[in-house]
C-alpha cells in the first residue's frame, strides 16, 4: 500500500511538473547550435501526414432596391430668406429675428398652410453631431415661431446636418451660408 501511495505521489508530482513546465505561450527563438544538425528530408515527410482541407466560399448577395413612399405634401421653396447661425451654435441671432417675424406673419395670414423648418450645418464638424446640431437649430427656429403665436402642429422640423450644403466650397463664405435654417411651405398633395 505504502509503495503504491508513493508511486501515486510520484506520478502526480511528475505530471504536475510537466504541466507547470508547459508554457502558455512559447516563442520559438533561433538557436544557433541547432541549425546545422537539421536535415530537410526527415522533416518534410513527417508533417505531410496531416492534410486538412477547407472549401472557401461566400454568399452571393442579391441587390435590393429601396422602397420610396410617395410624399403627402408638395413643397414650395424660396418664399422666405434663410436664417443663419454661428459655428457650433444653435441660438437665434438678432439678424434672424426679422425673418422669423416675417414667417410668423405669413403663417398667421395663411391659416391652412404648414411650414417645414430645415436645420443645416457647415461641413467642418462630424456628420452625426451635425445632424443633432441641425436638429437643435430647427428647434430653435420652431420655438421662436411658437412664441410668436404659431400652433406647434403647423411647424414641421427636419435636420439635414451637413448633408445638403447650399455652397460646396471649403471657404469661410460658404460655411457661413451653409449654417442655416431654411423654410419650406408644405401643401397637401392634390390640393
Amino acid at each position, binding site marked *: 500500500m505504502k509503495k*503504491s501511495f508513493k*508511486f*501515486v505521489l510520484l*506520478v502526480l508530482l*511528475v505530471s504536475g511538473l*510537466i*504541466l507547470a513546465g*508547459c*508554457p502558455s*505561450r*512559447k*516563442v*520559438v527563438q*533561433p538557436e544557433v547550435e*541547432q*541549425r546545422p544538425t*537539421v536535415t*530537410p528530408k526527415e*522533416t*518534410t515527410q*513527417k*508533417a*505531410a501526414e*496531416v*492534410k*486538412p*482541407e*477547407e*472549401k*472557401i*466560399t*461566400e*454568399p452571393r*448577395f*442579391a*441587390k*435590393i*432596391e*429601396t422602397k420610396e*413612399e410617395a*410624399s403627402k405634401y408638395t413643397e414650395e421653396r424660396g418664399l422666405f430668406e434663410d436664417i443663419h447661425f454661428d459655428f*457650433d451654435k444653435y441660438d437665434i441671432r438678432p439678424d434672424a429675428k426679422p425673418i422669423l417675424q416675417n414667417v410668423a406673419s405669413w403663417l398667421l395670414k395663411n391659416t391652412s398652410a404648414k411650414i*417645414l423648418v430645415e436645420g443645416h450645418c457647415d461641413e*467642418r*464638424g*462630424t*456628420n*452625426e*453631431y451635425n*445632424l*443633432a446640431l*441641425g*436638429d*437643435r437649430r430647427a*428647434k430653435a427656429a420652431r420655438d421662436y415661431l411658437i412664441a410668436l403665436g404659431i400652433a406647434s402642429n403647423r411647424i*414641421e*422640423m427636419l*435636420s*439635414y446636418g451637413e*448633408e445638403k450644403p447650399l455652397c460646396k466650397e471649403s471657404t469661410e463664405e460658404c460655411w457661413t451660408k451653409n449654417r442655416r435654417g431654411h423654410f419650406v411651405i408644405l401643401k397637401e398633395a392634390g390640393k
Partner: protein
Amino acid sequence: MKKSKEPSAKSVGQKGKNKIIRSILLVLCSMLYALCIALCVEAKVYIDISSPAFKKLPIAIQEFSGPSGKEISNIIRDDLEFTGLFLYIDRNAYLENPSQPFNPKNWTPIGVEAIVKGSVQEGKELSVTVSLYEVFEGKEIFKKEYKAEKEFIRPLSHAIANDIYYTLTGETGIFRSRISFVAEDKDKIGIYIMDWDGNRITNMGLKGNIILPPRWSRDGTKLIYSAERNRQWGIYLLYFKNMSERKVFSAKGTNIVGDFLPEGNDITLSSSKDGTPDLYIMNLNNNQIIKLTSSYGIEVSPAVSPDGKYIAFVSDRGGSPQIYTMRRDGSDRRRITFEGSYNTSPSWSPKGDRIVFVGRRGTNQIFTVRPDGSGLTQLTTVRNNEEPSFSPDGMYITFSSDRNRIRGIYIMRANGESQKRITPKNLRASGPRWSPN
C-alpha cells in the same frame, strides 16, 4: 503452513492490484504528458506580437506554381506585409527555386525565418496546397489544401494568409474581414461593402437621399443604419441572409442609430422625439425603448463597449461637444476628453481598452484615449480625418479622409503607421465600419 500461505496469497493479490493501479497510473501519466505536449505545440508562436520588443519576422513567400499562382501568393504577401509584423524578403534574393524541396540551408544565408510555398491546380475550381516552413526548426509547421471557385480567388488567398498569420502569431487574422461604407451613387447615397484591402467593392443597391454610415451587428449578419426618407429620419435593418430591409424605428425628429449591444437584439440610438437629442436603448424584438439621458442640449453617437456595460457618447452639456462615458443604464456619467473644444464620433477598441474619436484642432483629426480619459494619442495630422473604427483584432483603424481632395476610405495601424487609401480616387466615399468577423 496454511497460515503462512494465506498472507502470501494475499500479498500476491495485493501485488496484482498494485500492478493494475500502476499500469492505470502509467497510462494516465502518459495521457497527461501527451496532453501537455499537445498544449505546448498548440501554444507555440513564432512572433509574440503582444511583446513590446517583438522583432519583425523575416518571411519569404515563393511564387506559387500553377495558374493564378502569382496572384494568390501576391495577395498573401500584401496581407502579411500590411500588418507590419513581417519583414518580407524579396523573391530576387531567394537561393531556392520554388520547385526545389525546402532546405533550411538555402534560407539561413539570406536571413529568412519562415517560408511559404504553394501550388495551384485548376479544374472546375481552384485547388491550392500551401506549406509553411520554419528555418530554425528546419521543418514544415503547417500544410493545408484549399478549394474555391475561381471568382473567390481573393477570399481564398485571404484564408491562406489568415492560417499563416495564426500559425506564426497565435492570433486570428483579419484578412477575410470587410468594410461597409456609404458613397455617392448618381446624386444619391448608396451602401457599399468591400474587402478590408479595398478590393471587390459591392454596391448593395440601397439608395437614398441621405443614408448615414451603417453599423454591423456583432455576428456580422446584419447592418443597421439611419436614413432620411420623406422628411423622416428612420432606423433601418438590413438582413444579409435574405437581403431584406426592415424599418425598426421612426419618430418625429432626428433619429440616429448608435450601435448593437452584445445581446444582438438591443440597439442604442439618439432621438430628438422628446424635444432634444437624447440617448435610448431599444429592443428590436418588442420595440421597447428605454430613455438613458435627459438634457437640454445635444446627446448623440452612443457607442457600446465590447462587454456591453458602458456607452461612450457625445454631449454638449459642458458648452462644447465632448466625449463622455456612462453605464448602460445611464448612470455614472464621466467626461473623458478635455483637450480641444470639439470631440466627437467615439468608437471602442475590441478589447475595450481604448476609444478612438475625432478631435477638431483646426481640422478634424483622429485620436485615441483610454476609457478613463488618460493616454490621449493623436494618430493623423493631414487635412480632415473622420469616422474612425477599429478592426476586429484591434490592430488597425479605418477612417475617412479628404487629404487627396475627394473624400475616401483609409486604413492604418492602430498606432497611426502605414496610412493608405483603399477606395478609388474618384469615388466619393465615407463612413467606413469594419466587420466584426
